[in-house]
């Protein structure tokens, strides 16, 4: 609980009870026709202090057992029982302290038995403790619903932002227009290749639209898209792009987040191959390692630190793995052999498949 909230609570407690005591003491001569005596002030002080003390314990009970988080119909009986015990507790404390301090004359005390006295004092305390509980409860009720509203709004904004970002990350418009340009040139040069290229591009567009709806896809499905993607990039880069696959067939059924491999391969082209004058190699490896499905994407090129523009693809890969597999999945990217970048994903193997 933040410090200022607890401070606020104490001000309310002391202020509220203090104000009440002051009013009772000052109004005593007019209402009860009793003069203000030391004893009266003492009695009031005992009521106030025992009130603060007992309601504070009540508050601790409410907080520790989380009654405020319960729906109203479940919280109500608990609060009623709570109020009952608090009233009796308050009465006991008051009676004990009053007797110990000798604030009421023995004669007056002996006139009534203990049980009726406890009952009346409890009812007396109830007059204060019931409003106290109502104030406490409604304050938190309003506060909670306001916080909930705020959280919902925040969450909605976050979801929207993520959606937009993922859509953007899924297909790079630069790639689409370059592919279309290559295909247009191919129409005259190699009509058959142009036709397959259009099919490949359609596959990629379709799968990226479906990707939003699915949590995971089989590796095989994802690999097919990546193969289409790389075939298209090969039209663009020609000899500058070499492609190698090393796929363990048993891994084809493994579940992976949709478009994850695609994003990593796109990065390999965008930040690796397309920056090398002589091009290079993109290699995709999929196999089992211990209890993990291991995916490795290597490409010629250099890791250029953490430039802002490049960050999103990698950050979203990490996030998605974490959301889907928690701490059990692993992702890293590093430079090996001086001129090769290696991205590696470890996903817990799904042995049921």
């Amino acid at each position: 609980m933040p410090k200022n909230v607890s401070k606020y609570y104490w001000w309310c407690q002391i202020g509220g009870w203090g104000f009440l005591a002051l009013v009772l003491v000052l109004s005593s001569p007019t209402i009860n026709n009793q003069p203000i005596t030391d004893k009266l002030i003492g009695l009031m002080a005992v009521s106030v202090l025992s009130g603060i003390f007992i309601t504070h314990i009540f508050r601790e009970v409410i907080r520790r057992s989380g009654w405020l988080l319960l729906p109203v119909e479940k919280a109500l009986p608990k609060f009623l029982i709570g109020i009952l015990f608090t009233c009796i507790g308050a009465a006991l404390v008051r009676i004990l302290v009053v007797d110990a301090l000798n604030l009421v004359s023995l004669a007056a005390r002996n006139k009534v038995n203990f049980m009726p006295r406890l009952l009346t004092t409890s009812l007396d305390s109830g007059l204060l403790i019931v409003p106290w509980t109502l104030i406490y409860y409604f304050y938190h009720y309003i506060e909670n619903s306001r916080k909930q509203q705020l959280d919902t709004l925040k969450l909605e904004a976050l979801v929207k932002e993520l959606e937009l970002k993922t859509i953007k990350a899924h297909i790079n418009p630069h790639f689409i227009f370059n592919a279309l340009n290559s295909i247009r040139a191919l129409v005259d040069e190699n009509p058959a290749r142009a036709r397959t290229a259009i099919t490949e591009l359609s596959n990629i567009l379709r799968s990226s639209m479906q990707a939003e709806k699915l949590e995971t896809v089989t590796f095989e499905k994802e690999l097919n898209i990546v193969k289409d993607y790389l075939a298209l990039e090969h039209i663009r880069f020609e000899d500058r792009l070499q492609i190698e696959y090393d796929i363990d067939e048993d891994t084809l059924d493994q579940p992976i987040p949709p478009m994850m491999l695609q994003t990593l391969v796109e990065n390999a082209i965008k930040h690796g191959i397309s920056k090398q004058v002589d091009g290079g190699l993109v290699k995709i490896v999929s196999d089992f390692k211990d209890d993990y499905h291991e995916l490795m994407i290597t490409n010629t090129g250099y890791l250029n630190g953490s430039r802002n523009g490049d960050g999103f693809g990698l950050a979203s890969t990490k996030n998605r793995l974490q959301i889907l597999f928690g701490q059990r999945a692993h992702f890293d990217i590093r430079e090996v052999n001086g001129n090769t970048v290696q991205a590696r994903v470890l996903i817990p193997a799904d042995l049921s498949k």
Partner: protein
Amino acid sequence: MIRAIIIDDERLARNELKKLLLDFPEIEVIAEAANASEGVEKIDTLSPDLIFLDIQMPGKTGFDMLSELERAPNVIFTTAYDEYALKAFEVNALDYLLKPVEPKRLADALQKLQLEEDKEPISDHSISVNRSILNEHDQVFVKDGERCWFVKLSDIRLFESVGNYAKVYFGPNKPLILKSLNALEERLDEKVFFRANRKHIVNLRLIEKIEPYFNGGLLLEMKGGEKIEVSRRQTVKFKEMMSL
């Protein structure tokens, strides 16, 4: 006839553009280049009238390549969708084509180029005696961080030496280029650009006021308000030039 070079790292993209240019008989594609360094080489040896330039290329971008050139030819940029390049174009009002190129847009871009040439005929390079000297109608491409400009030399009023760089004053801008003042002096037309002192080269056509100064020197006030001192030795030369 406009002699053009296509610079793009993709063979198919170059082919596609060549094919589109067949409809424009006034354009002759004299060479192609697949990256920035090849591009610089071909521009230096062939001095084309026009280049079609891709922005995203391996090694250096099209912008980087242009700022390496002594003399910037007319440029039409070509790019597939690229947020950063598009922003640069908008900021600097450069002409660009989006790939796949729409024939109509290509025609517009070429026509705009023709109009500009009619208005202010670009010096015919085959006639100019010494090609290494930059004519005042020549333009240079200046890049300073995110911003870039094509600047006509006649619009530059002042070059100021700042370490290994030179600060180029034109309009309200004064970007830095990586060139020494001595190297610049060698390339500039001495009839227009005058070395006033160790640190400054001024454009004689853009002087606002001339005043006498200490020690028989002169103080020049440029059109942009900069005050430049002419050293005593250069003052003699300056007076000679101005008196014809």
